[in-house]
């Protein structure tokens, strides 16, 4: 196992971590501020990817496609919040899960009605395609470097928004005490819609960015949704910083686990057994990490409350 391979895998882990962060950030904000479990967050990711594929197909521009994804997912988010979610804030979590699960089915079949059952085409733009050579002779795809950069930029912006702006103060206050900030005259329902739109736009952006190197198809959001939930549980529900740390941990654990666990078992098992034990354990690694975090810090790494 060479150093080059290890560095490359660490980069891969970082890249999948920052993309996971875009999903997890919205999820954790919505849960932290509104107390809502939104299973349909993965559908917004899918909406972003489909919108990007449609815009890229029509205009040929990747940047317009990203913009289209942001707008489409935000609009979908606002509609969902105003038509469905708004009625569920007072309801218990089971009702929220049921309603947002129904939204997943509606989004999936609706997308199929509009775009058909076959995956769509969305590709990396020419100016970001192909590998670049990093110091040390590592060949690494430029697009994945760009994803890391974009993810970090979004994380910084989000941090500035929440720590340095008036809206951010309201969001933080909303997390701590919903009734109180409503009593102080903040238009709480507008704030909720805004947060929902922000979370949706981030999910849509992630869908579009990742869609260029993956398959844009109905149901693409659900596997990511599960990982995003694991991420926010590890990071501490409601905490953006926690979501960031959790996302990087999950990304790195998953990538490095799938490479190094089989290699590790090969040291003392025959190759076939090592492969199957290693891969099975790698699939579980993220959940083992989550259990460990929950044992030692039941509220997550940065969580304030259970």
């Amino acid at each position, binding site marked *: 196992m060479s150093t080059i391979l290890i560095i490359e895998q660490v980069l891969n882990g970082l890249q*999948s971590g920052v993309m996971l962060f875009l999903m997890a950030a919205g999820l954790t904000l919505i849960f932290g501020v509104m107390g809502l479990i939104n299973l349909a967050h993965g559908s917004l990711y899918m909406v972003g990817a489909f919108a990007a594929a449609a815009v890229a197909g029509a205009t040929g521009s990747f940047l317009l496609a990203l913009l289209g994804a942001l707008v489409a997912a935000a609009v979908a988010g606002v509609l969902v919040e105003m038509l469905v979610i708004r009625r569920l804030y007072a309801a218990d979590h089971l009702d929220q899960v049921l309603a947002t699960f129904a939204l997943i089915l509606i989004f999936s079949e609706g997308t199929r009605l509009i775009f058909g059952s076959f995956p769509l085409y969305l590709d990396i733009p020419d100016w970001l395609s192909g590998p670049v050579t990093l110091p040390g002779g590592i060949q690494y795809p430029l697009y994945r470097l760009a994803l890391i950069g974009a993810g970090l930029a979004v994380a910084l912006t989000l941090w500035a928004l929440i720590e340095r702006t008036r809206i951010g103060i309201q969001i933080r206050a909303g997390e701590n005490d919903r009734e109180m900030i409503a009593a102080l005259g903040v238009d709480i329902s507008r704030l909720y819609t805004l947060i929902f739109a922000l979370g949706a736009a981030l999910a849509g952006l992630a869908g579009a960015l990742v869609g*260029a190197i993956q398959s844009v198809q109905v149901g693409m959001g659900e596997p990511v949704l599960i990982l995003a939930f694991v991420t926010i549980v590890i990071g501490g529900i409601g905490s953006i910083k926690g979501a960031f740390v959790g996302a990087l941990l999950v990304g790195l654990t998953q990538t490095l686990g799938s490479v190094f666990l089989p290699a590790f078992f090969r040291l003392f098992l025959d190759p076939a057994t090592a492969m199957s034990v290693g891969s099975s354990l790698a699939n579980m690694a993220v959940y083992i990490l989550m259990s460990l975090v929950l044992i030692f810090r039941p509220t997550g790494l940065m969580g304030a409350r259970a």
Partner: protein
Amino acid sequence: MKKLLMTTALLALASTAQAEVKVGMITTLSGGGAGLGIDVRDGFLLALAQSGRDDIELVVEDDQQKPDIAVQLADKMIQSDRVDVMTGIIFSNLAMAVIPAAVNQGVVYLSPNAGPSQLAGRGCHPNYFNVAWQNDNLHEAAGAYANTAGYANSFILAPNYPAGQDALTGYKRMYEGALAGEIYTQLGQTDYAAEIAQIRASGADSVFFFLPGGMGISFLKQYADSGVDIPVVGPAFSFDQGILQAVGEAALGVVNTSQWSKDIDIPVNAAFVESFQAEYGRLPSLYASQGFDTANLLISALEKADPSDNAAFRAALREADFDSTRGEFRFGPNQHPIQTIYAREVIREGDVFTNRIIGVALEDHADAYAAECQMD
């Protein structure tokens, strides 16, 4: 009132008399695997329409790619719809949940896609026919192709589930070279950066992968962008007409193995491709050809025997007396196909990505489990 009842009863009788054969199709029409089920269904419907027979009643239901739902639908079809023949299931895990029970209740099952090894070997049954392939076949063909292409150091990968393990076993059964690496990925995995880095570092001279559906799209796009230029070979499942357009240029030149291709140069296939395109406005995939062949096999048997005479009907099916879109087609002793499997290459025709045959990978190939099958 009495008269009315009589008339209704007569009408009911008349309608059952008209629909002599009832066929139940359980297939995947929603969710991520819907494209496959839709193609099988459309191919099947096209063949029924072209036969001009109006005595075949087809009941189509969506299994949502969930075994429990498929089992419920099968129970309903067998017990309340009283179907004579069943078909349609795409995925092997659903096939294993439905088929053994169905054939034991006297229903004839014609598989248009799934071909799990269990049903080809010890679990074979006189009422079960596979019209597509045994699951290992296309992978075996890929292994055989790798030998003729002179590959001696393959890196192989597949998802960690039964069909994925069968795929690597199938490849290794025919492939004679060494292995540079063997990886099981997660089922439903979307990011292959870690695997591609290992391929790059492995010193392989070829890559074999079985990643059906969206997994294959993701892998090929990322592989093309990684700058690794080791040749890739795989079964047709990641290169069928439905998903090639989503992969785009990343798939150009990749060799894949299939029992069917739209350029198999025989009249029945040319007519099939043309009429499918005219009817549905898209090119057919191998799944569509399998649906079409399944319906034509059924029709050929119905012309000789009635399903109510189970033995005669099965004998008629075994003859496989129909013009298959893939050319030569016959059943082996376990009622699975013996057929030629081709190596194809992905090309661009105008602005559409499609496949072209570049050679024969395995001629008159039967599956490896036939010897274990004891029909009686």
